[in-house]
């Protein structure tokens, strides 16, 4: 296999806080191939968003500190100057954020906001940028683009704002799109539209996508490969089918078990939702042993003492659990 588009090695993002170091991301490695869609899933506070922000170096340093390496097309992003990094942001790697309501600048019109990346990275004039902005709005399915392009964010609905965000992100034909919870803040029907749009555009633009989400429904819809994160670490990674069929890590099993089945209370198949007891542990203390041990039903003394390494449990399927083989069979 040739070199992947993105190769993240031992990424660590730590924050210096008054009461200790917060190890938000603690040594995560993964790769993304050209045109591939990889999902990163996990609960709130497990480091997904920080991982995403670290990839574009949007973490304020200090108090943050990013270590490891992020190789994008062979270049280590962590070694680039801020100026070189700016040339990549919004151009080769772009990002969509969770909150379409607040992620657009309220005092600049749509043309200006879409046009900004084009003017920065492709040197278009204001006039050309506006024409391209109208084109982009058509592409993301906004009706009356020539009128909408003159409007301001407060005149658009949430779904339309997210479409505008996508238009901004795709304006320069990026090779990699990082989508941080792109549908979380939207109505369910709008969520489906936005997911369809992303899938459609991915094929047209040919960009790889890193999709950050806690929504396993979304993962099943769009992702090809899934990385499960817990407490700043990768605990499992597999092709989407394998992960849903045979989750190896107890945490992944817990996540899958806590998804409500639509209409199960009506068909009489309702079972109590299996929640994962407890919360993500504080990342300020160094944890000996398995990070999930405090919440794991299967945890033994071994788990509490020795951190399990990521092992290949099946071809292309890795998990960090001492008992992963057995649990997979049990599940």
């Amino acid at each position: 296999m040739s070199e992947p588009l993105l190769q993240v090695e031992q990424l660590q993002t730590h924050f210096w806080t008054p009461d200790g170091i917060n190890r938000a991301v603690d040594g995560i490695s993964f790769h993304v191939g050209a045109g591939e869609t990889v999902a990163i899933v996990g609960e709130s506070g497990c480091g997904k968003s920080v991982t995403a922000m670290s990839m574009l170096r949007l973490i304020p340093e200090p108090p943050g500190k990013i270590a490891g390496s992020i190789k994008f097309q062979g270049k280590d992003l962590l070694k680039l100057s801020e100026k070189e990094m700016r040339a990549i942001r919004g151009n080769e790697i772009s990002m969509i954020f969770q909150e379409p309501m607040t992620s657009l600048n309220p005092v600049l019109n749509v043309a200006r906001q879409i046009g900004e990346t084009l003017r920065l990275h492709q040197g278009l004039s204001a006039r050309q940028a506006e024409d391209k902005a109208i084109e982009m709005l058509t592409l993301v399915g906004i009706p009356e683009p020539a009128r909408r392009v003159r409007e301001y964010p407060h005149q658009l609905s949430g779904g339309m704002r997210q479409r505008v965000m996508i238009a901004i992100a795709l304006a320069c034909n990026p090779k990699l799109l990082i989508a941080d919870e792109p549908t979380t803040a939207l109505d369910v029907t709008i969520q489906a539209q936005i997911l369809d749009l992303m899938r459609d555009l991915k094929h047209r633009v040919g960009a790889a996508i890193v999709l950050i989400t806690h929504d396993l429904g979304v993962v099943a819809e769009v992702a090809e490969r899934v990385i499960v994160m817990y407490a700043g670490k990768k605990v499992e990674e597999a092709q989407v089918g394998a992960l849903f069929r045979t989750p190896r890590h107890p945490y992944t099993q817990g996540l899958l078990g806590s998804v409500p089945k639509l209409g199960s209370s009506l068909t009489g198949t309702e079972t109590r939702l299996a929640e994962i007891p407890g919360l993500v542990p504080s990342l300020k203390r160094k944890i000996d042993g398995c990070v999930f041990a405090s919440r794991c039903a299967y945890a033994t003394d071994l788990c509490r003492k020795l951190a399990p390494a990521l092992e290949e449990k099946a071809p292309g399927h890795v998990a960090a659990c001492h008992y992963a083989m057995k649990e997979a069979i049990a599940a």
Partner: protein
Amino acid sequence: MFAYVVRRVLATIPVMGLVALFVFSLLYLAPGDPAAVIAGDQATPQDVERIRASLGLDRPYLVRFGEWFFRILQGDLGLSIFTNLPVTTMIAQRIEPTLSLMILTLILAISIAVPMGVIAAWKQGTLIDRAVMGFAVLGFSVPVFVVGYVLAYIFALELDWLPVQGYTPFARGFVPWLQNLILPAIALGGVYIALIARITRATMLEVLQQDYIRTARAKGANQSSILFLHALKNAAVPIVTVIGIGIALLIGGAVVTESVFAIPGLGRLTVDAILRRDYPVIQGVVLLFSFVYVLVNLAIDLAYTLFDPRIRY
């Protein structure tokens, strides 16, 4: 939008009427009798009474207000009790230095204070931020006349770079005009700069936390574009507001500054008129200042719509 502007302009008319009534009443109620001042120490009560009648001060309040107001509408502010010159003429003679001083101070203050506040917010918690905030505290707490005298001492007396006092009309050249005004403008601008810089910093700190700033960064925008386009435009409304409110500070400060630097402007005219109980002049000047302030507020209201598209009336 046009209808809004017309409505706002029309709405200032009753405000101006009320201001006129207030200005008139203030002096009517103020202690002291101009007739007695004019008559001098040796005058008999009959003399004072005669002078009062000749000035029309013996007639009822409402009659006097009515007459005065009617004359103002015709652009006639009356005659000075002291010089017998029309008040409009006296104001016209004195307006250029004051207007020059205020405009220069305004330009100087905004062009210094806004970048100062922006940079302080960007470098929050660093030495630069603390220096800016320290300067702001200083600007607030040191009175205009102290700053004025210190500046005059250093730059005019010791270094001999600039004239100590006086005023050169703009018509005689920009450089001499500026040389005379730069120290007064800095002295007068101190508080104003402090005020604008503080508000700018506070507003910018809040704006820089917003999600859209992160979006701008993710788009590859450079630092100055993030600060001065994405953030400052969002912070503009409170900043413009405080700039407008601060013009009242400038009007008050101009009176003191003109005294310190011996500038023959409206401030000096006001002080002299008050000391002489020259009612028509006081009324004229206060009315003019009020009028300017009302117009400034109107301008601010209209400026909001330029910065924030969400503000529509």
